[in-house]
């Protein structure tokens, strides 16, 4: 099992390296996707390797010439990677989310890499609008057409359904890991769970699924240390939290039992219907996503992120919530006070950690996490 986790960790650490190797071996197309709601199934059905483009660990250097330092680390890193030539492996980029920072990033990439097709089809973000379903169906139909034009041949519904089945299986297996971790039957660390999810965003899905088929039954059934404080992680809507930040939770006496991170449960919680018109199925998948894990970038009047968090923190048996907020992430900055107020009202310990692309003050952060863990521990004992 260690070997499987090491493979996933290696891919997660160098996603574009994996993509380059895959391309060399298969001569296939690599299609980059921006987060957070755009499905990879259509690109997969087109015979390509869909890769969700990731923040890397390099400091932003040449990218400074095209992006302000008051943009989030993900956007600054993506621009930097584009200008460093890292995206030469890509045959196209697809995206549909209208994060205002991401729209600017896409324009910089278009200007920097004019030969790289960028297929932008904006998703309707008002999920409870009367026209949301029709507009989403239109969006995915348009994307289907554009992908066919890109690869120069038709994509059949049967191909898309096969991709949907494969992606569903992949998500279902990762959800099994979540169930086992919540139940205290396995002791995957925050770092390991991120590696599992992040590598699924990058690897050939069939290859990744095959690894999961072995990993899920093969992981040793043992729980975390009995005295560890159970922690729920929330936030980081587009990019992966830095691994040392995740490690800190465990180093300070905590254990991550659940999360709603994009590089976590948010990425795998919901499946696409495997029968019927695949465009309709993808549209339904997109529309219903926020009913399961609310997203602050989608307008749904009846749903509140803080209600979801309260419910799931309790359901997972977590003793506290750590909110990981990427600096300059606007949707998170808007909704954080709602979460803070709700957790204050309910007397549940919570800690806000603002994360940055560049170096973080880990020693200072360690003190804060230790204090938080201690508070949660005492609250539990009281």
């Amino acid at each position, binding site marked *: 099992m260690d070997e499987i986790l090491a493979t996933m960790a290696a891919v997660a650490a160098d996603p574009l390296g994996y993509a380059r190797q895959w391309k060399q071996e298969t001569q296939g197309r690599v299609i980059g996707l921006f987060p957070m709601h755009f499905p990879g199934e259509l690109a997969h059905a087109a015979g390509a390797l869909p890769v969700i483009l990731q923040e890397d660990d390099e400091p932003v250097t040449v990218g400074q*010439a*095209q*992006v*302000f330092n*008051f*943009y989030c680390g993900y956007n600054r890193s993506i621009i930097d990677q584009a200008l460093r030539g890292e995206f030469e492996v890509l045959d196209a980029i697809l995206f549909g989310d*209208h*994060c*205002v*920072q991401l*729209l*600017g990033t896409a*324009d*910089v990439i*278009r*200007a920097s890499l004019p030969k790289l*097709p*960028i*297929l*932008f089809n*904006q998703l*309707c*973000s*008002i999920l409870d*609008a*009367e*026209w949301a379903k029709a*507009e989403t169906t239109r969006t995915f139909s348009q994307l289907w057409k554009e992908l066919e034009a890109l690869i120069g041949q038709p994509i059949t519904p049967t191909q898309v359904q096969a991709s949907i089945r494969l992606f569903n299986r992949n998500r279902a297996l990762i959800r099994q890991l979540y169930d086992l971790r919540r139940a205290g039957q396995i002791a995957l660390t925050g770092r390991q769970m991120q590696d599992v999810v992040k590598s699924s965003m990058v690897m050939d899905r069939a290859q990744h699924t095959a690894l999961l088929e072995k990993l899920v039954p093969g992981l040793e059934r043992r729980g975390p240390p009995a005295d560890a404080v159970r922690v729920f992680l929330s936030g980081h809507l587009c990019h992966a939290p830095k691994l040392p930040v995740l490690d800190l939770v465990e180093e300070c006496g905590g254990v991550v039992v659940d999360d709603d991170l994009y590089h976590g449960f948010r990425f795998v919680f919901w499946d696409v219907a495997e029968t019927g018109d695949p465009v309709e199925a993808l549209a339904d998948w997109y529309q219903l996503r926020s009913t399961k894990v609310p997203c*602050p*970038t989608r*307008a749904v*009047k009846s749903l*509140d992120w803080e209600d979801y968090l309260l419910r799931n923190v309790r359901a997972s048996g977590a003793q506290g919530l750590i909110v990981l907020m990427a*600096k*300059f992430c*606007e*949707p998170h*900055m*808007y*909704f*954080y*006070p*709602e979460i*803070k*107020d709700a957790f204050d009202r309910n007397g549940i310990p919570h800690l806000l950690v603002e994360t940055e692309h560049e170096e973080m003050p880990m020693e200072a952060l360690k003190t804060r996490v230790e204090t938080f863990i201690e508070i949660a521990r005492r609250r539990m004992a009281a």
Partner: protein
Amino acid sequence: MQMVAETQERSKAGPVFGNGERANRLKATRFGGKLVNDYWESLFAAKEQGKKVVWYNGTYIPPFFHAHDVAWVHGEAWSAMLSAKHREVTAQARGDQKGYDRELCSYARTHIGQLLIELDKVKSGTSDMAPDDPRIETLLKLPPPDMIINAYPYCSSGQQWDDITYRLFGKKVPMMTISIPLLWGGRPDAGYLRGEEWHERSRYVADQLVAMTKFMEEHTGRKFDFDRLSEVMGYIKKAAQLRLEAMDLCTAQPSPASFFDWIVSIAPVNFLPGDQNIVTYFEGVLAECKERIARGEGAVKDEKYRLFFDGMMNWNKVGWLADKFAAVNACVVAGRYTHMSFWQEPELIDLENPVLGMAQNYLICPNNHGAPIMIGEIERICDKFKIDGMVMHAARTCRGMTNSQFLIADSAKRHGRQALFFEGDVADESFYKDELLNVRLEAMVEALDAKARAA
């Protein structure tokens, strides 16, 4: 309050910079001040008159409210007004207290902060204002909404702002959100006002606007009058045409008006009622521009340099910046915010059936095009007005307008124009760095002089 007073004092003083000349602002724009004050006064009386009040954010949809006889509060205008009057600090502090990070859109922080102050008053039973309150105190009295409508082109932050407003009112106020999607311009036939994407998106937005009229009907119990909408749009179309005609006169050298005159002329084409007053306003502006041209009088004394302002306005610093540029004989002739928005394509509006043309004007707001088409339009304007250099306002909390600014500056340089950046913000004065602008502006005019000498 002392801090607020000090801020006001500081801002009244002109910038200590350059040759001491100040901007020669258009006198005709003073009528706009009266119109704006009348608008806010009538808004504060709306509840007493039994009118429903809509809070909205985003593009210029008030003609729909006007036609339906409901009062409207534009969140951005509210925040800009508080900032222009240097009254934003208290509102922003209340937002800070609630937990909103200061890197969040300062329009939103100011608006939400003031909303929280009003809710505090309601909770403490001190919401009624004394009749002899100073005028500014009256202006701070925000009438609560009966409906919330969000219609933000391009900017995701704008949509999330009202998602929070809706929640702060306990989800008890009906809300509708309209999607005005980006015109990415990636298809082969894409171009300014043309292509499959343009036509498809125009129809999409128009359909949502019609849905908005149904939403208002539902929450007022009255039928929407499309004839009345045509009537209102008749005034707006005329005002927009006059505005463009007056803007075009600024190809003259010296330019009779500056970007800062157009900045203070935004309200009439953004959120003021569509009636004869706004036509009269722009007739006055046009007439004064013509008179100035006849006299050879410029918006800046001894105009030597002609500049383009890119980015969102710094509402704390309108007069300050106008004088700063005048002090180096630089006329900021045009800008992205003023010249690429606010009914800049009035001929698209068919008064018999105005909704589609209105949707199209909303779609072409200054950042809702992908960069290639948007920058093409900027260069066209710069060529038209014979622009020497670009002033890029990097508004700290406005990603909608800072996106693509490096690309815009690159393009300017390719077209032989200078470009400078300065730091500031739309409504948070603490981000403004005056000395940086001074140094960079001095360097720019020196470079322009050197270029002129070499020519």
